[in-house]
């Protein structure tokens, strides 16, 4: 968690593609208002993230956190901006290749398929991964391999043959996360994937994300919960401004967790691991 010191506390941080894994430049969101007109959610935001980082993104609801992440994955029709991976502009990628590298994980888990195993295999049925599949182990999509991977991810309790709709919220969230993690994205944009989960499941999800960061993925998390000590950097999106805030001390984290802060207020604290 030493890379945090390099970042400055203003929105101008990280312009251009200078060495960062992922950079976003001049990100603007203009939403159509119901009944005509437009609202600008934010304008000209800058952002960057590197492999191994876990960046927490907080801010009041409605401030456009999800919009920002879907803009990064270039899924949002109301946003503009330029985005680059390793300094390469997203326009030089096909949309599919871009999203394979910069994976957005929605807040609600939509698992498609008859069984959990099918749901996890889904990304590998897409054309964009047909070449990648040839390089992977032949049994990568076998039940046994998926089982082993899920076990490693702490999903021992999830039966592969179950219908996705029969899973609990926590299980579905973990399967959805596992599905995306198995595709090995370079940047993982996790949109409040621990929302509505109990402490135990939230903890498991956080562990999985930390593990992905450890393997070199850049992780961006939207969070509303009390800090869990896994972030390496923390940013607040509020009133159209994206600011970097200092990581809280361990004491602040402990206090926040004791208080069991329900909703990550804008100045929510974050710190070093106190559990595990």
């Amino acid at each position, binding site marked *: 968690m030493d890379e945090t010191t390099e970042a400055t506390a203003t929105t101008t941080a990280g312009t251009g593609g200078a060495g960062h894994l992922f950079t976003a430049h001049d990100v603007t969101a203009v939403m159509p208002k119901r009944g005509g007109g437009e609202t600008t959610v934010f304008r000209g935001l800058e952002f960057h993230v590197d492999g191994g980082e876990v960046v927490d993104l907080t801010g009041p609801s409605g401030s456009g956190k999800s919009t920002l992440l879907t803009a990064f994955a270039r899924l*949002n029709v109301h946003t503009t901006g330029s985005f680059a991976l390793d300094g390469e502009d997203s326009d030089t990628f096909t*949309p*599919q290749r871009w999203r394979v590298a910069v994976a957005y994980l929605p807040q609600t888990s939509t698992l498609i398929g008859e069984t959990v195993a099918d749901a996890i295999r889904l990304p590998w049925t*897409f054309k964009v*991964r047909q070449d990648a599949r040839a390089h992977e182990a032949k049994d990568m999509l076998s039940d046994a391999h998926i089982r082993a991977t899920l076990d490693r991810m702490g999903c021992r309790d999830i039966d592969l043959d179950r219908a996705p709709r029969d899973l609990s919220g926590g299980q579905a969230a973990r399967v959805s996360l596992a599905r995306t993690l198995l595709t090995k994205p370079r940047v993982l944009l996790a949109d409040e994937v621990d929302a509505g989960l109990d402490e135990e499941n939230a903890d498991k999800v956080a562990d999985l994300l930390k593990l992905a960061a450890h393997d070199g993925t850049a992780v961006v998390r939207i969070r509303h919960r009390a800090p869990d000590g896994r972030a390496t950097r923390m940013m607040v999106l509020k009133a159209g401004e994206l600011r970097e805030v200092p990581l809280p001390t361990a004491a602040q984290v402990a206090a926040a967790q004791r208080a069991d802060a329900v909703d990550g207020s804008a100045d929510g604290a974050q710190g070093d691991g106190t559990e595990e």
Partner: protein
Amino acid sequence: MESYFDIDIWGLVAAVVMVIVAAGISALMRTGVAKSLIWATARSLVQLLAMGFILEYVIRQNNVWLVIGLITLMLLAAVQITMGRATGAPKGLVGIVLLSLVVTMLLMLAIVAELIVRPKPWYAPQLVIPLTGMLLGNTVSALALGLSRFFESMRERYAEVNTMLALGATKWEAAKPSMISSIRLGLLPSIAMLASSGIVTIPGMMSGQIIAGKSPVSAAKYQFVILAAVAALTLVADSIIIALIYKRCFISYDRYFVPEPAKKLSFKDLVQLRKDVHPDEKPDEVRREAEQEQRARTR
């Protein structure tokens, strides 16, 4: 027409009286359908007779341009009905609907008329026009159903489509479940009709030929060819249209965005619209359009 039993004016009167009696009964029972029953009956009488006179004229003239003109009018009416019935479909589909109808109609005429039946002259109106009508009647319902279903499904699958795109799906891959469900739904009536014909119903065309004194076996052969061709071509029309419109649910960089449904046109708007497009046409064409609907229903 050796053993053909014509219906005289009293036959029509008797049929109308039947409807009036039925309407009287339902008025007594206060079902509230009496008025619309009478109105629909009057419309159907006028529309069918009009179509009869027009066809009689066209057949007597036996002129290739007249046949082509009538078919063109039928096509335009079919496009209009499809757009009117396809709820939830966005604007700007007229060209695509017309294209898929034209393609299937040409296939129908090429295969069924010119390859199987081989009439002389090749444009024999008594064959070509009813054939076109039967095909269009069926395709119009299938297309309208398929279009509505496709856009409805794409709207419902909001979260699913976005999840698939986020996982690297192409537009085609993300839209595929909706396409399949739409084509399946559009084709169901055709399949049901194929399977039930001859057991539950004697289809309209076969009945007509039998009443007209033709051999029931040759009537059956005719009917089968038509049913099979119509079912196959309905699938073709549906596939063409879905393959051409699925992209409408996405914008640049393969982002999911289902366009707003077009404003529903009222019947009055349709007449108005048609006048705008074809200022020299008589409302007589509107009748024919409704008539095709009728035919699609009765068949």
